[in-house]
């Protein structure tokens, strides 16, 4: 294993020796595999990636931001990450990254609290302990929600709980968490017998966004766009299967799950799938489609909130490689 500074040379220029020899293509997920990732497993199972000459290697993130840092450092071909965080990191830290596709057309991120806590909207968050995954935007989202309802965020406590969003909430370590997915955490908590309240940050002034986007290294996209195109094509094909036959797709996911590590509940994932399918592809936008406009709106909002230090044109961040 080498020290990877000359990142693109290994990935980009591997010669294709016919159909047999598959090229490794590594992806870093945003979270542990769940329904939203079904299409990837389906694609592997059905050989769609192999058809494109790719051997898809799925990595789970070990840090919350691996989805952006690994492709940026050239240690992965693609990563799944959150749109607003991607804008922030890419512009503020000059991380050479571009988005090559959107996974969902709307936000899924919700604030969750136990019913007992009496938190049912942004106004109740004042002075509470709020757990988040360490993405700095979560803090800003809470603050902006509070200000949106005319409160100040002064005495909110933010606690970085990493991947332990659900446990921090259920064990009473925090009063509310942000960074839960409406499709997964919500039904999961309900199935586990917790009565919860949840609400979207978008209800309180945070702009709609493609929750998750595919990020690739700028270099890699410029030097070898074709490789990523192949990946995206296979994804689209896989998503087609997922849409056609969600149960089969889910089953493949469940078969591939790492039960000892992150067991999935079939009923929860079924609910999740129901929530997801309508937002991953809409009548207006096909799967993976993204509009620079949505990006720009978010960037402008970030600037207004004082999070982005400059007004930024995000056009270079968005590259549509397939349609």
């Amino acid at each position, binding site marked *: 294993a080498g020290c990877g*500074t000359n990142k693109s040379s290994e990935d980009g220029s591997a010669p294709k020796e016919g159909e047999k020899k598959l090229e490794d293509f590594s992806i870093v997920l945003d979270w542990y595999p769940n329904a939203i990732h079904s299409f990837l497993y389906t694609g592997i199972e059905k050989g769609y990636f192999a058809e494109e000459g790719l051997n898809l290697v799925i990595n789970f993130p070990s*840090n919350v*931001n691996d989805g952006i840092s690994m492709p*940026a450092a050239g240690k992965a071909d693609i990563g799944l990450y959150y749109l607003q965080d991607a804008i922030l990191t890419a512009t503020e830290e000059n*991380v050479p990254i571009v988005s090559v596709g959107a996974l969902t057309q709307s936000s899924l991120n919700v604030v969750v609290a136990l019913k007992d806590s009496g938190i049912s909207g942004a106004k109740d968050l004042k002075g509470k302990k709020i757990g988040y995954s360490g993405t700095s935007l979560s803090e800003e989202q809470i603050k902006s929600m509070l200000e949106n309802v005319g409160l100040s965020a002064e005495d909110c406590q933010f606690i*970085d709980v990493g991947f332990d969003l659900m446990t921090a909430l259920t064990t009473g370590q925090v009063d509310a968490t942000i960074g839960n997915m409406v499709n997964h955490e919500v039904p999961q908590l309900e199935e586990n017998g917790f009565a919860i309240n949840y609400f979207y940050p978008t209800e309180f002034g945070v702009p709609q966004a493609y929750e998750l986007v595919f990020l690739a290294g700028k270099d890699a996209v410029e030097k070898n766009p074709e490789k990523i195109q192949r990946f995206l094509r296979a994804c689209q094909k896989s998503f087609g299967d997922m849409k056609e036959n969600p149960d089969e797709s889910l089953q493949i996911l469940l078969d591939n799950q790492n039960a000892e590590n992150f067991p999935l509940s079939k009923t929860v994932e079924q609910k999740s799938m129901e929530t997801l399918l309508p937002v991953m592809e809409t009548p207006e936008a096909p799967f993976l489609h993204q509009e620079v406009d949505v990006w720009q709106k978010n960037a402008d909002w970030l600037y207004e909130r004082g999070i982005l230090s400059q007004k930024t044109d995000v056009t270079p961040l968005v590259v549509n490689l397939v349609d």
Partner: protein
Amino acid sequence: MKKNMPSALLVLILLMLWQGVAMGIDAAYILPSPTGILVRLWELRVPLFTVHLPATMGITALGLLISVVLGLLLAIAMDWNPKLEKALYPVIVASQTIPTTAIAPLFILWFGYSIWSKVLVTILMTFFPIAITVFDGFKSTKREMEELLFTYGASKKDVFLKLKLPTALPHFFSAIKMAIPLSVIGAAIAEWLGAQKGLGYFSKRMMTQLDGAGVFAPVVLLSVVAMLTVWVITMIENKTITWRKEL
């Protein structure tokens, strides 16, 4: 000053190398340059020095203090009573092999996000090395000297005070010097598990934002503080122990 020249030179060369490589890579989120780190340290001086440094220092100081007291007590107890030694020593050695960091998340369930969950991690990291090193120090007293004291009718306490304590003193210093970095590591780990302030927390936060220089700034701060402490202790040691090669 003069005798530190070679070392200063080496550090300088290493820093220059680092700077060179960092400038070559030119991606602060992969490897920030030393100058970049310094700049960031300056920019962040207010939160770092007023909030995060005190928080981490509090954890390490408290943790170290408790560890030293506990470790010494345990070492003394084991030296005092062979039964206790037989019972405790293997357990201590064994307990040292427990990867405390792995169960550290549980501490948060026990103590919440209070300082104690972090102090506990620090204690668990430093307590065992101190106890064992000091105890080994007690054990390494010269047999013949112990016998001599015994013939003077020395009580156990006398043997302890007059012979074992001086013999173990160098070990005690080594233990402290070993424990300081460990306590810092312990605190950094603890702050990862969940904290609202502290240099470890700060560093992690910067990592999430891929702010490489920001990751290093608190690390540099922490190790400067640790270095100073180790240096002070070495000074005290050199003043105290003049007979190392004569025993």
